[in-house]
Each structure stands twice: as structure tokens, then as C-alpha cells.
């Protein structure tokens, strides 16, 4: 499970000065649940997820993932997390199989186990045709499947997705969403960021709306609808954000 406690992150930018990318964000995600982080570009989604994945250290606040604190036990956190983002590319000169095996090794898996899990994942994701092709020769959809297999090789309890459908065509995007729901079905704790309203409606159990680094509101879709008096996700979002800007 994921527990963010007053997470904040500031960047010192030479041109823009101090940037409060994430400010006092707290939320909880339970196993078997998909938590949607909805926000426009620059809202702070990627920074929040990087804090959870220990790629960045929080300026203040902390997060506890599967019982480990991101600040004090980052390696233990990463051992339980699968992180998939548009910015996590594949090694072009490795084959899909080698790519998956490399991350299996870094997770401390033994070679026979890596081979066995790769075979199973390849079957599940229908990767057998291109498993031994170099990653730089794969199509976007194939790359995405390889990335998914890479995040799953150690069977993580927590999955973090940062706009995983960005730049994918309709079919590939649907496959990714199906896979995200599969993770929930297997009891994983899932956090999913997006700026696409319809995706939230399709997959998320709970939604947090993030804007300017702050979590404006969170709850189930029904709760948010009740709070704003709107039915459509887009209307809910616009109302919350304009209320914040006015305040």
C-alpha cells in the first residue's frame, strides 16, 4: 500500500526561481485499488510519482510504501515498486528479452527464475514474435509491452504509472488500460496519473485532482460528483480548478 504524508518538492530553477512542484500532498492507496492522479500539464503528477518511486527525494513530508519509508529505505521501496512512465525508455541495443533479464538481475532474481518469468510474461503480453528483436527496432506498442514486462519481472506489489498511454494509438492504449485493471485484479496497489478525463472514469477507483502542485480534492468518482454537483469528470475537474484559481 501507498501512503503519502504531506509530500512537498521544490526545485531551484535558474530561470524561473523556486518552483513548488508538489505542495503538501497526502493520500492513501490500498491494495487492489487504482488511484487516479488527474491534472493538467505541469500540475505536479510526474514529480509526485517520482517521489514515490524514490527517483527524487522529498523537500519535506514523506511517503511509506509497503511499510518502507522513501527517505530512509529507498532501495527497499524500489524493490516493491514497478514504475512505468513515458520517460522510462528501453535500451535500444538490447533485445526485449535482454532488457527484461537485466532488470530481473538488478532485482536479484536467479537466472532460471528470470527465464521462467520472461516466458510467462511474454505469453501473457503476446510478445513471442519480437522477444529477441532489438528494442530500437520495435513499434511503439511492442515497446510498451516490453516496458510493462520490465516493470513486472519482479512481481511488484505496487505499480506506479505515469501517463502510460501518452503517444499510443487507440488499440495500444486500450491494451495498457486492460493491463492496469489486471494489476488491480491481482491485488496490486496501483497509482495512475493522466490528464485524460475519460481514462479516469474507465479505470480509477479513487481520484485525486492535482493542480499547481496541490491536491485540490480526492474521493471516489461518486463522492466528487456529489461534492461538485456535476456528473461528468471533465465538469468536475473544471469546477474544482476554477474554484481554486478564484480563491
Amino acid at each position: 500500500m501507498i501512503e503519502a504524508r504531506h509530500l512537498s518538492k521544490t526545485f531551484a530553477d535558474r530561470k524561473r526561481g523556486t518552483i513548488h512542484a508538489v505542495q503538501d500532498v497526502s493520500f492513501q492507496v490500498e491494495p487492489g485499488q487504482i488511484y487516479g492522479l488527474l491534472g493538467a500539464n505541469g500540475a505536479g503528477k510526474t514529480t509526485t510519482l517520482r517521489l514515490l518511486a524514490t527517483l527524487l527525494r522529498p523537500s519535506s513530508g514523506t511517503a511509506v510504501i509497503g511499510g518502507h519509508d522513501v527517505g530512509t529505505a529507498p532501495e527497499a521501496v524500489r524493490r516493491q515498486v514497478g514504475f512505468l512512465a513515458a520517460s522510462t525508455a528501453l535500451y535500444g541495443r538490447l533485445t526485449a528479452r535482454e532488457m527484461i533479464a537485466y532488470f530481473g538481475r538488478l532485482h536479484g532474481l536467479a537466472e532460471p527464475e528470470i527465464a521462467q518469468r520472461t516466458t510467462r510474461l511474454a505469453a501473457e503480453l503476446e510478445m513471442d514474435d519480437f522477444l529477441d528483436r532489438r528494442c530500437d527496432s520495435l513499434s511503439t506498442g511492442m515497446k510498451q509491452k516490453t516496458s510493462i514486462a520490465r516493470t513486472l519481472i519482479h512481481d511488484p506489489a505496487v505499480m506506479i504509472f505515469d501517463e502510460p498511454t501518452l503517444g499510443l494509438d487507440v488499440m495500444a492504449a486500450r491494451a495498457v488500460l486492460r493491463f492496469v485493471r489486471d494489476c488491480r485484479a491481482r491485488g496490486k496497489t496501483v497509482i495512475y496519473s493522466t490528464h485524460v478525463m475519460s481514462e479516469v472514469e474507465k479505470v480509477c477507483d479513487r481520484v485525486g485532482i492535482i493542480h499547481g502542485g496541490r491536491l485540490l480534492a480526492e474521493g471516489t468518482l461518486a463522492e466528487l460528483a456529489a461534492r461538485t454537483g456535476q456528473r461528468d469528470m471533465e465538469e468536475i475537474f473544471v469546477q474544482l480548478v476554477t474554484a481554486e484559481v478564484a480563491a
Partner: protein
Amino acid sequence: MNGRNVFAVFAKELKDALRDRRTLFSTLIIPTFVIPLLSFGTLGLGSKMVAKARDQKPVVMIVGGDDAPQVAASLAKLGRFEIVPPRAGHEQLIADKVVGAVLLLPADFAAALRLGEVPRATILHYEGELRSGFAADELERFVREFREQQIAATLEAKGLPLRTVRPFELARRNVAPPEKVGGNLLGGFVPYLIIVLCFTGAMYPAIDVTAGEKERGTMETLLCSPAARVEIVLGKFLLVLTGSLTSMALSLGSMGATAMVTGALMHGGAEATVAGAGAGGGSGYVPMIAPLGLLGVLALVLPVAVLFSALEFTIALFARSTKEAQSYLGPLMLVVLMPAIVGMLPGIDLNTTLAFVPLLNLSLACKEMLSGVWHWPYLAIIFFSTCLYAAGALALAVRMFNREDVIFRT
């Protein structure tokens, strides 16, 4: 720290590097083939040109001395010169390389000698021009001999022995053993070459595993793995070090092999000539280097390679793109070369202070070791101080890798 992770990172980077044509080219092909070819080509061409200039008869001209045709006659008798009839504008002729040197005599040279005056003979040459230099040297030797003959004749006329003006003979002999000569000649060149090769061998791998990885968006993927940052740095650093040492070893090996083959050919040829002539005699010495010295050089180079690898890794890591990394490391190479070049200058010798100056200490120590001189205290200072610098550079690399603003610099 987990050694398995370090090895996993290293093994993956090695596989990756071996599949990259640019890395292969810069760390394997260039040092093995291009650098020896260039060095030997330049050296060979240089020595060939010198030999050619020496073999050719110097072209000279005598201007003036109208009443002393015996000067030109004895010059011609030697048969060592090609004599050009006097022409106007001789300075221009030298500049145009039509003649190598000109002997300028007063018009009444013989008359002045007879009258007991001291006329002046001048040799004109073009400083820095190889063939002109040879011609002037030869011409001067001839004029000195001619003067000696004059002295001898005068003394004889007065019934005095030659001893009066030449009470003793003077000779000059080289006592440096061949490896000493080689050490001083090659001692300057070898460390220079080693420094260049260590540096360039590390350069492409260093850029590829840092800025290259950022550019291709795989850095973030790697950082999601549970491997500790220090394990990732060490794995990558080992690859860079491998590149540095491999390219140096390949290049030196390839040059050594070429030198041995050509040396054997040349040596065999020289012996055949001597045997054919049926006469012994000094055919000059072949410059040699002390073989143990070469081992010593390699021992000192190891920490230097570590230092370079860590330094280049750190700098390339800081860059946003491979282009930016290249623009940092290219000029750095010139900075790194300076101490090596200073070490080649004659007259600078190892002392306690200089033993602490990185790179300069290496080139000075190389000069000594290759000529068979072992100053153990200096060598110890050099080895351990360079190890210390290398460790510092590696620590810096780890620190850089832990900095978010470096890893996520966009």
C-alpha cells in the same frame, strides 16, 4: 554494496558497448590501426626525409674569390657537392631552395691572403631549412679543412711543425648506453601517447553511459531498479575504465608489434650490408628502452586510467546531451596534454614537489624508468598520490550521480 549488481551493470554496459559501432570504432579500431599507422607513418616519413636530405649531394655556390680558383677546384675535387655556377640574387636562390648554401668570398681573396690581411669568408644558409642546414654544415667543414691546409702550408714554409698551432687533438664520444638514449627519446613520447590513449579510450564510453543514457531516456528506467546509486556508478565506471585500458593496450601492443617487425627487418638488412661490405664498424646504435621500465610505466598508468575514467564519467554525467559532453571533454584533452608536453621538455627532472603533480609526474617518471633509472621514493609518491586523486575523482562521480539536478538536468 552488492557486487552482483555492480557486475550486472558492468556486463550490460559491456554488451551494449560492443553493439555500438561508434564505441567499437573509437576504442578498438582507431587505437589498433589508425594510431600506430599515424605515428609510424609520421616517424617513418620524417626519418625518410632526413635520410633523403642527407643522401643528396648538397647544392652549393661560390660567389667572389675571383683570384682564388683553387678554392672552387678543391671543392669540386671532393666530389661531395653539387656546385652551381655563380649567379646574381644568391640570397633569393637559397630562399627558393635552388641552392642549399652559398660561400661568399671577397673578390681579392687570394691577394688578401698573400698580403697577410685577414679576409672574411661567409656562408649563407636558411635557418630551419633541413637541406640548407646540411649544405652549410658540409660547406663549413670544407672551409675549415681549407684553412687548415693554409695553416699547414704557412708553417711548413717557416719550418715549424703543425704542433705549434695544434698542440693536442680533440674528440667527442657518446657514453650513454643505448637504452639511456632510447629512454630519453621515447621516454618523452611514450607517456604522451599513453595519456592520449587513456583519455580518448575512456571518452566515448563515458559519454555513452551517462549523457547518452540521459538523452535516450533510459537513465530514469535504470534508476527505478533497486540497485543502489553507488553500484550503478561502479558498474558504469568499470566499463569506462575497460575502454580506457583496452584502447591503450591495443594501441601499444599494435605499435610494439609493428616496431618489432620493422626493427627485425631493418636490423637484418643492416647486417647483410655490413657482411656484404666485408667490413665491421659502428653502424650507429639502435635506441632501446629498458623492458622492466615498460612494466613500471604500466603500473603507474593504472591509477591514471582510473583518474581519467572517473573524471570523464563525472563531466559527461553533468552534460545534458552527448553533444554537450563532447564539447566539455574535447577541450579537456588539451588541458590534460599540457603536463605531458611539459614533461617532454629537456631539463625538467623529477623532484619531490613535481612528484605530486598529476600527469607531469607520470611523464617525468616514464622518462627515468625507460632509461633504467628507478627513484623508488618518487615512484611511491607518484603511485599513491595518483591513487588518491583517482579515488577522489571516483567519489566525486558517486556524489554527482546522487544529485537530482544533475541526473534530471533538462
